[in-house]
């Protein structure tokens, strides 16, 4: 580590800026405040994203039925309360965009990378507080633009969250490809800038600002996950930016990167020589790593929470780090499995089948290591722990069906059906959401100095867990039956009539799951103001953030930064009185440190 920087930081305690309301709560450069800003913006976007899914689930269960709620929320887009097909497509598009990018990328990684990286590695703040602040405000701006796009005359983007051209490029093709799509692209471009600034900051901070004794092999797995996630982000997000820019060129300046030979609305367009398949390559070059940008932080969070609450070391620390690295590497060479039937050469399909199925190996290692960590533990089943165990469960269930979708042959018949929807919602949607919840329950005391109510947490978990399986398990059947996703209704095919009752079951569970989130919201907001005041280390955890005072302060520690003498997982170590030994406690005489 850079010792010069560390020394400067070690000495700067006692040095305080004068803070006004604006610099403390709005344009704050303090990583803890920025984390809270990310979390609250992310939760707000999450409410919108989840509410949208409930709206289109109503349409899918009771197609073309009038609902008063549609009339209220969608206005002219739901004449007489019946949802318009274009609006259905807009809802699924914006739901996907918001959940993947705004909630599970910014809301999850943004919150916990910001909160935990400096605190867990023993740094006074991020490497650059200013860039960190800019990163948040760019994210905020992109959220505002995305929300604003819901209110334009012709409606928001409606080409699916993957916005494949030509559908997304031609306003003649659907109303959503006009102003709505322009705003979508602008919003995403800003979002990517925000994400890049954030990621660079995380990488630099982890590499340079670790406290004395905090070697890379003593890093908590959370930090490993955030660090690797940031690297994947830096590698792949720029490619999405280039795709977005080329698409903007095609839309507004008449270039032909993705378009060729098009006749639409009675008119031959001038585009020549472009290829939509090129766009698909560029999109999925980010799109697939994005899955792991969403998932790895969640896995990092649960590694930490499972070890703490099992009162056991995480099993196979080295294997856990190695599998994070392996997943990260493989994630950048598997994008083609989204394109088996795109018209690309079938031989490429073979290569991507091979690389894709390899990902199952590090994933299996992770799952088995989690299970072994539970074995003979002394499990403290706090809400955070329940969500972590829930994550492992959905990660397994969802991950296994990936073996079918990653196999190019089997993909032929289930590609773009509800089978895919069920698969990715379980393996990255629900899993990452559980990671987010686990993180909030676990680090709420660190963020707000108060505890969340555990019993409400239990209600939240159990209702959500049952409802999530209730939604996504039957959905596999709908997909295997051959029903394509992004269908406004399946009533155009009598063949699918026997799927109607499954759709009703799914929607009922979705409504229950939605209602359960209100319990969480209540708990979150109420505990923020009236929750029980926390002690310094409520979960009796080993990591450094719990050595910092409960009351937030600029610079994190009042005195010198604690030095680190051991790894983060000395739980229930033989020969110790307590069942945990925090990282800053020096080794006892004759005590051996595990070699990593």
């Amino acid at each position, binding site marked *: 580590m850079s010792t010069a920087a560390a020394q400067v930081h070690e000495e700067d305690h006692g040095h305080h800026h004068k803070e006004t309301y604006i610099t403390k709560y709005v344009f704050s450069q303090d990583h803890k405040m920025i984390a809270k800003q990310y979390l609250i913006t992310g939760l707000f976007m999450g409410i919108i994203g989840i509410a949208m899914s409930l709206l289109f689930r109503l349409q899918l269960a009771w197609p073309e039925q009038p609902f008063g709620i549609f009339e209220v929320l969608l206005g002219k887009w739901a004449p007489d309360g019946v949802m318009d097909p274009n609006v259905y497509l807009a809802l699924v598009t914006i739901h996907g965009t918001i959940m993947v990018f705004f909630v599970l990328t910014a809301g999850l990684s943004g919150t916990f990378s910001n909160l935990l990286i400096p605190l867990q590695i023993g740094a006074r703040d991020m490497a650059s507080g200013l860039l960190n602040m800019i990163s948040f405000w760019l994210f905020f701006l992109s959220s505002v633009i995305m929300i604003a796009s819901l209110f334009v005359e012709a409606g928001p983007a409606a080409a699916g969250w993957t916005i494949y051209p030509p559908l997304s490029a031609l306003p003649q093709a659907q109303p959503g490809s006009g102003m709505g799509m322009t705003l979508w692209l602008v919003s995403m471009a800003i979002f990517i800038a925000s994400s890049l600034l954030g990621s660079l900051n995380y990488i630099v901070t982890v590499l340079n600002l670790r406290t004395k004794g905090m070697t890379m092999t003593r890093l908590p797995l959370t930090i490993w996950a955030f660090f690797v996630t940031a690297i994947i982000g830096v590698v792949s997000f720029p490619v999405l930016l280039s795709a977005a820019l080329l698409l903007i060129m095609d839309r507004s300046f008449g270039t032909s990167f993705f378009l*060729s030979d098009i006749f639409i609305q009675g008119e031959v367009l001038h585009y020549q020589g472009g290829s939509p398949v090129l766009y698909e390559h560029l999109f999925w070059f980010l799109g697939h790593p994005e899955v792991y940008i969403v998932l790895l932080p969640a896995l990092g969070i649960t590694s930490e929470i499972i070890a703490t609450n099992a009162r056991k070391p995480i099993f196979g620390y080295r294997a856990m780090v190695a599998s994070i690295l392996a997943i990260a590497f493989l994630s950048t060479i598997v994008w083609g499995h989204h394109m088996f039937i*795109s018209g690309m050469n079938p031989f490429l399909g073979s290569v991507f089948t091979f690389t894709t199925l390899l990902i199952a190996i590090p994933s299996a290692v992770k799952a088995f290591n989690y299970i072994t960590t539970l074995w003979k533990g002394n499990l403290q089943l706090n809400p955070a722990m329940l969500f972590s165990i829930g994550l492992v469960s959905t990660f397994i269930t969802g991950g296994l069906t990936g073996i079918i979708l990653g196999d190019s042959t089997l993909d032929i018949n289930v590609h773009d059906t509800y089978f895919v929807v069920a698969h990715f919602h379980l393996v990255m949607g629900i899993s990452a959401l559980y990671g987010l919840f686990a993180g909030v329950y676990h680090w709420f005391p660190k963020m707000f100095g108060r505890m969340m109510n555990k019993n409400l947490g239990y209600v939240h978990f159990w209702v959500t867990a049952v409802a999530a399986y209730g939604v996504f398990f039957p959905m596999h059947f709908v997909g295997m039956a051959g029903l394509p996703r992004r269908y406004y209704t399946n009533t155009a095919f009598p063949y699918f009539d026997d799927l109607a009752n499954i759709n009703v079951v799914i929607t009922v569970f979705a409504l229950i799951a939605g209602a359960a989130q209100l319990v969480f919201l209540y708990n979150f907001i109420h505990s923020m103001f009236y929750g029980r005041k926390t002690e310094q280390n409520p979960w009796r955890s080993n990591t450094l953030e719990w050595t910092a005072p409960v009351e937030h302060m600029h610079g994190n520690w009042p005195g010198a930064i604690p030095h680190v003498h051991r790894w983060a997982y000395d739980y229930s170590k033989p020969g110790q009185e307590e069942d945990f030994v925090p990282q800053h406690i020096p080794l006892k005489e004759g005590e051996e440190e595990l070699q990593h």
Partner: protein
Amino acid sequence: MTIALSLTILVLIGISVWQIAKIFELSQSKKENTQVANDNDNRYNGQLMFAFLLFIYGITLYSFWKWGDVLLPEAASEHGSEYDNLMWISFAIIFFVQTITQALLHYFSYKYHGKKGQKALFYADNDRLEAIWTIIPVITLAGLILYGLYTWTDIMSVEENEDALVVELYAQQFNWKARYAGDDGVLGDANVRFLQDFDGRNLVGIDATDPNGLDDVIVQELHLLVGREVIFKMRSQDVLHSAYMPFFRAQMNCVPGMITEFAFTPNKTTDEMRLDPDVVAKVKKINKIRAENSKALVANGEEALEPYVFDYLLLCNKICGASHYNMQMKIVVDTPEEFEKWMADQQTFAQVIQ
């Protein structure tokens, strides 16, 4: 009125969940209020973990019992059985792993729930164990990958041959057309630039100066021959579409500006499929549902639904706009005699543009 009503209902639901949460919170014992799980919490939640395992098994079994008949439509192409074998083998592996891992995860969560004064086992590493659960997936996956790639190459190799029927599938918002090569067996050149020729009668943009195109036949209903390979050449005139034919285990995107291919050999005629016991059962079930739905419609003074008759389907499976959900074409698999008879009734391109 409905607006006000539903807004009120929504607000009331919100308020009631909020209030329930509050009552719940207030009703809790004040004696111990640390908000950290105690032995009681650990015990109850451990038991719930075990119950949840039963729930996962339950919902799996229930779904298969209730909806097992909707899985994978009857295969009707020569590679269909190959595909189905691979699918069921993969499924068997998945269910085996799922059953065991979920059992371990939830059983451990139940069995090792925390008790005060108890100490966990300090167990940080075991290289042998980790090697075992790295190698087992490696072997299993190697098998699946090899099997999968073998099948994939088999399905995807499109070889031009004399016997195959060459059909162009033509996609546009929001319908499908098919073009047959006619007597000469060669599809005429085509491009979207020619679509406006002949007052819009040139439906797929055939180049009228290419003699190969004059005997081409353009239809709105796809007819295939049982036992004869069909090679599809796919085009799209506007946005991406995907030609999805679930009964034939076939799917390929239609991409503007390029021609994509997919080939298969149908092995059951439409008439044969209509007599297949599984299909008969399925049709019966669907017609029962349709009869139920019709009752409600008739009560409202609307027309009853027509009874369903089995037909092969071509669906669009790539989001393409407002009517994406209804972009379909009927596929009929004929015997050679039926096919000849049907083809004889169709007009050639030359006849259409006269």
